[in-house]
């Protein structure tokens, strides 16, 4: 596991509706230690997803540095695994091929990547759905696949963008508990974006409150695990 450092991060963009440059992120600095779970919370439009998109390399920062371990971020890369709000599974691939996708990109042969993908599917309780297509799965099952797809690629940092926002409340609780179980075993460095304060407190070592593009407060959560 590696650390994730955000240093004096800025993001401005031209808003055609307003006709001027708008500041989305204003001087955000954040240090996430190896194996630490940090949640960023804030209302819609506070810039929390913008931060994740910049860390993932999907969006260039206007100013500032993003560093994983000791390497600055330049574009998307497999050192940062991303879990998307709407799962973003490839609809034309089976679940096992989705989970093995990162391994395939690393040139690992089919039998080996199927074996590894199957291990991760078992971890998520999804081995029975290995040969199904994403659209045949419930939202909760799709997101389990989305989480282990990121994990199977052995990222240094896990980036989660409101991953449980589009499943029902019951499923969300189950997924949160499963995430805690997996994280407890593997201790990934996690940047977790959510608008749900309860979720942030349940999951994270530290909660960062974001408002209008800057950090309002950082709150360490000292409640012993398991929580709930």
């Amino acid at each position, binding site marked *: 596991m590696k650390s994730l450092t955000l240093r004096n991060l800025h993001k401005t963009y031209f808003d055609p509706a307003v006709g001027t440059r708008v500041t989305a992120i204003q001087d955000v600095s954040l240090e996430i230690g190896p194996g630490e779970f940090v949640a960023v919370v804030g209302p819609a439009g506070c810039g929390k997803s913008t931060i994740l998109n910049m860390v*993932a*390399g*999907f969006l260039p920062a206007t100013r500032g540095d993003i560093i994983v371990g000791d390497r600055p971020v330049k*574009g*998307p*890369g*497999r050192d*940062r*695994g*991303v879990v*998307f709000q*709407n799962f*973003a*599974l*490839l*609809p*034309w691939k089976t679940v096992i091929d989705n989970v093995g*996708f*990162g391994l395939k*990109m*690393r040139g690992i042969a089919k039998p080996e990547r199927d074996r590894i993908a199957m291990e991760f599917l078992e971890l998520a309780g999804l081995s029975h759905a290995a040969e199904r*297509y*994403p*659209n045949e799965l419930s939202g909760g099952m799709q997101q389990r696949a989305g989480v282990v*797809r*990121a994990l199977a*690629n052995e990222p240094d940092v896990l980036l989660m963008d409101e991953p449980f926002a589009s499943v029902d409340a019951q499923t969300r609780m189950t997924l949160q508990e499963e995430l805690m179980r997996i994280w407890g075993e593997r201790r990934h460095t996690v940047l977790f974006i959510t608008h749900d304060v309860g979720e942030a407190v349940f999951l994270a070592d530290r909660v960062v409150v974001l408002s209008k593009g800057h950090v309002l407060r950082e709150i360490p959560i000292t409640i012993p695990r398991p929580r709930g």
Partner: protein
Amino acid sequence: MSHSAAPIEMGQGPGAARHLRQAATFVAPLVVLFLCWPLLVSAFGVDARVFPGVKAVFAAAVESVSDGSLLAHVAASLGRVAAGTLLAVVVAVPLGVAMGVNAGVSAFLTPLFRFFSVLAGIAWIPIATLWFGYGFGAITFVIFNAVFFIVAYNTLLGVTAIPMRLRHAAASLGASRLAMVTEVLLPGALPNIVTGIRTGLGFAWRGLIAAEMIATNVGLGYMLFVARDFYRTEVIVLGMIVIGILWLLIDRLILAPLERATIERWGVVQRA
């Protein structure tokens, strides 16, 4: 009979029956037309030089099959369609993908491709004969154009319709530029590409018949046109029947199932 069937057969039974019913619904009007034809011809005493009887057409079919001329015409026509279509798809798909990944390029080229998509087909015949002379080149060019612009445009549409998050997901899992094309863009655009090929081939088939009337000495279009010079209406009608049936077979047995299969698998999530 269904009460003793295994569950799996019960599942397939109604589906197969529905397919059969659909096929029957499709074929029935054609059969009615075929039955009315000799009645009408004899009832009104239609002259064979205006419209042929069934027997004459049947005789023409037997003759042209036995002397091999029908096969030669069909082979020539299908060969041109295959060559033109294959060439068009091979060029159009990579081009459509390349354009689709660049927003500026796609915005610029979209109106042009729409314009040429509408134009495609018969309108190219005069200039094609000027450029290539009469024969294979001109006709293949007409077919190429009919398929090329529609497939390129559809590929472009398909690529731009792929949700950005899928490209982001692939990139964050380590996909190279090449892998992005083969693993995300091509499969993502496949339903549109297949739809484009089906639409383009429809235009190409019509364009082919027209082009063959003008620009060649073998092929189904030529067969019709030359028969006209000799008042051989039975050959003309035979050719029309063959042209229609061939297209129905290509469309119903190859293109439509292909389109359905890709849209069912690939499209559900994307189009929802």
